[in-house]
């Protein structure tokens, strides 16, 4: 690993900032739902903070992502403003999608967040199209398709990875292997590592520790460089763990208690935080201030969202087509 790309000091702190933001936002989301102030299907990304954080520091606002229902971490890491997110998940008119999309369909082209889908596998074929567009324009942009381990067994994965490889598209397939697809463990659904499938398309691919910011950064930056250089797609299988049940409210009785406790004891967020202090890249006080700032921003976003209006029913006739419905 020693000759692989390493994030510089500022980048490490920035990765942590995104991780801290995701973690804080997740904690607040669960709290607000628990309090009854908000009703939404909520897919916690807790435990998976490193992946999009270390990925996105290699991207600019011009690069695209397609993500999935469990996507708030991917969106926040890519720069989605908290107010727009909260207003959306609260179903308000000030949300990214005027409240019409909801948590599973957050879209924010300003930051390259092009599609959030609720259909397993669907982020990948669409990501190809964005990448094809970049290839046609020669604009050097990169598209990242996020998806889960469970999605690696669906037909769309196969078709998308093959097309990307054959067309040498500037796209990166980032599988967040959190071991679970709803209630089913990955081992029960496949005999191989997800990354092993890259070879089936003649595509670069590797399995990395998705909870290690350095490993994830290296894989991400190399994949981005490959894509920008016109050398084609990459499949990254980022190993991680889902701290909670599939969706908020799921008691997760099917999850092995010891494995879960171990994963939580290895929580990547405090781990990386400690490392930054240990290596002198930040002080406890600096990070505490950063975290306090994040909390404040979230406070504001939640209040903004809950004070925002619901869309009127006339919105049901808008955006079905360009022209308004009768």
């Amino acid at each position, binding site marked *: 690993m020693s000759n692989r790309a390493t994030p510089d000091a500022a980048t490490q702190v920035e990765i942590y900032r995104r991780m801290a933001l995701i973690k804080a936002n997740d904690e607040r989301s669960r709290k607000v739902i628990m309090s009854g102030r908000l009703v939404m299907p909520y897919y916690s990304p807790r435990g998976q903070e490193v992946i999009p954080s270390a990925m996105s520091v290699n991207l600019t606002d011009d690069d695209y992502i397609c993500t999935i229902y469990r996507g708030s971490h991917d969106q926040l890491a890519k720069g989605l403003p908290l107010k727009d997110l909260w207003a959306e998940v609260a*179903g308000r008119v000030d949300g990214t*999608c005027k409240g019409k999309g909801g948590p599973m369909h957050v879209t924010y082209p300003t930051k390259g967040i092009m599609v959030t889908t609720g259909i397993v596998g669907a982020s990948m074929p669409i990501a190809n199209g964005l990448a094809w567009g970049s290839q046609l324009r020669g604009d050097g942009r990169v598209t990242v398709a996020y998806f889960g381990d469970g999605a690696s067994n*669906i037909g769309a994965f196969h078709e998308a990875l093959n097309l990307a490889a054959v067309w040498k598209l500037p796209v990166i397939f980032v599988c967040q292997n959190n071991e679970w697809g709803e209630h*089913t463990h990955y081992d029960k659904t496949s005999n191989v590592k997800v990354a092993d499938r890259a070879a089936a398309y003649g595509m670069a691919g590797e399995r990395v520790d998705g909870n290690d910011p350095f490993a994830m950064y290296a894989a991400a930056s190399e994949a981005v460089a490959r894509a920008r250089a016109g050398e084609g797609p990459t499949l990254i299988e980022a190993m991680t763990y889902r701290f909670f049940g599939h969706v908020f409210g799921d008691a997760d*009785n099917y999850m092995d208690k010891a494995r879960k406790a171990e994963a939580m004891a290895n929580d990547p967020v405090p781990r990386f935080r400690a490392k930054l202090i240990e290596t002198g890249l930040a002080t406890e006080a600096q990070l505490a201030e950063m975290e306090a700032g994040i909390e404040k921003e979230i406070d504001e976003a939640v209040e903004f969202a809950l004070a925002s209006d619901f869309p009127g029913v006339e*919105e*049901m006739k808008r955006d079905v087509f360009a022209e308004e419905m009768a």
Partner: protein
Amino acid sequence: MNAQTNVKAAKANILQGINAAIADAMEEDDNVIALGEDLADPEEGGVCGVTKGLSSRFGEHRVRSTPISEQAIIGAAIGASLIGFKPVAEIMLMNFTTVAMDMIVNHAAKLRFMSGGQTHVPIVIRTMTGTGFASGGQHCDYLEAWFAHTAGIKVVAPSSPKDAYGLMRSAIDDPDPVLFIENLPTYWSPDEAPEKGHRVPIGKANVLNEGSDVTIIAYARMIQEAVPAVARLKEAGISAELIDLRTIAPWDKDTVVKSVARTGRAIIVHEAVTPFGAGAEIAAVLNEELFGKLRAPVKRLGGVFCPVPFSKPLETAFAPQTADIVAAAEALVKS
């Protein structure tokens, strides 16, 4: 306390009705098998627990959790059915039938015909759907009209625990593919419990309330909106007949046409968007069969023609509600 326990024992919800039907069928016939995502007990018997207990009782070889591979799920069900099994396959949500349409429409529905009757596909495809849980545009569509437009597959949608049990038993008995639509938000509504072995014939509607001024034709969760509408209409002096269609394909023309022939007015209520929905077929047939005999135009009440919105007030406004049914009936009777 005892009396109360008894009353309780006679109650069940729809989820339990489906579970009991599959369990009873599996007990009676080794050829009944089940598959789908998260279906077995280590995976908690499905995301809502509809199949809970089945794999523990009948073995994980007969009740199998699958990878997220809907084409493979339906394909496996079809193949096993060709050699005498009776698979009950789950496509978790109805919107996910979109990734398995080839298997369902080009294969399950057609193999009997294309093989000249040499093979047939006695599978049940369970799938849940419905607005009400804020799941947005890709998780709650009612797509029954697609399948009803396909020769070779039947479509049912129960609205009570008894019907859920009875239709599931009939669907498993049936020698042809049956799409079994479950309404997610009403899974837990308690009602009279089904008796073991109960059958609801496929293709037979259920007259839930007799009336003389207007016929309301509905199914699935729309029954829960229609029942209070009937009560409110009664207060307003309007006698409404309520028909639970139960089977959308082949639907019970006989019962529906006879009822509307009597009342002269019809309202069809479904959650699917109105244009090109199941209501269009029913309206077209009623108009043809009862030409010149209707007292008012057939009214269709369906979902607003848009993807299902997330925002709560919009989601609520999407599907027909009790008040809409009442208003429609009053307008028809006045017209």
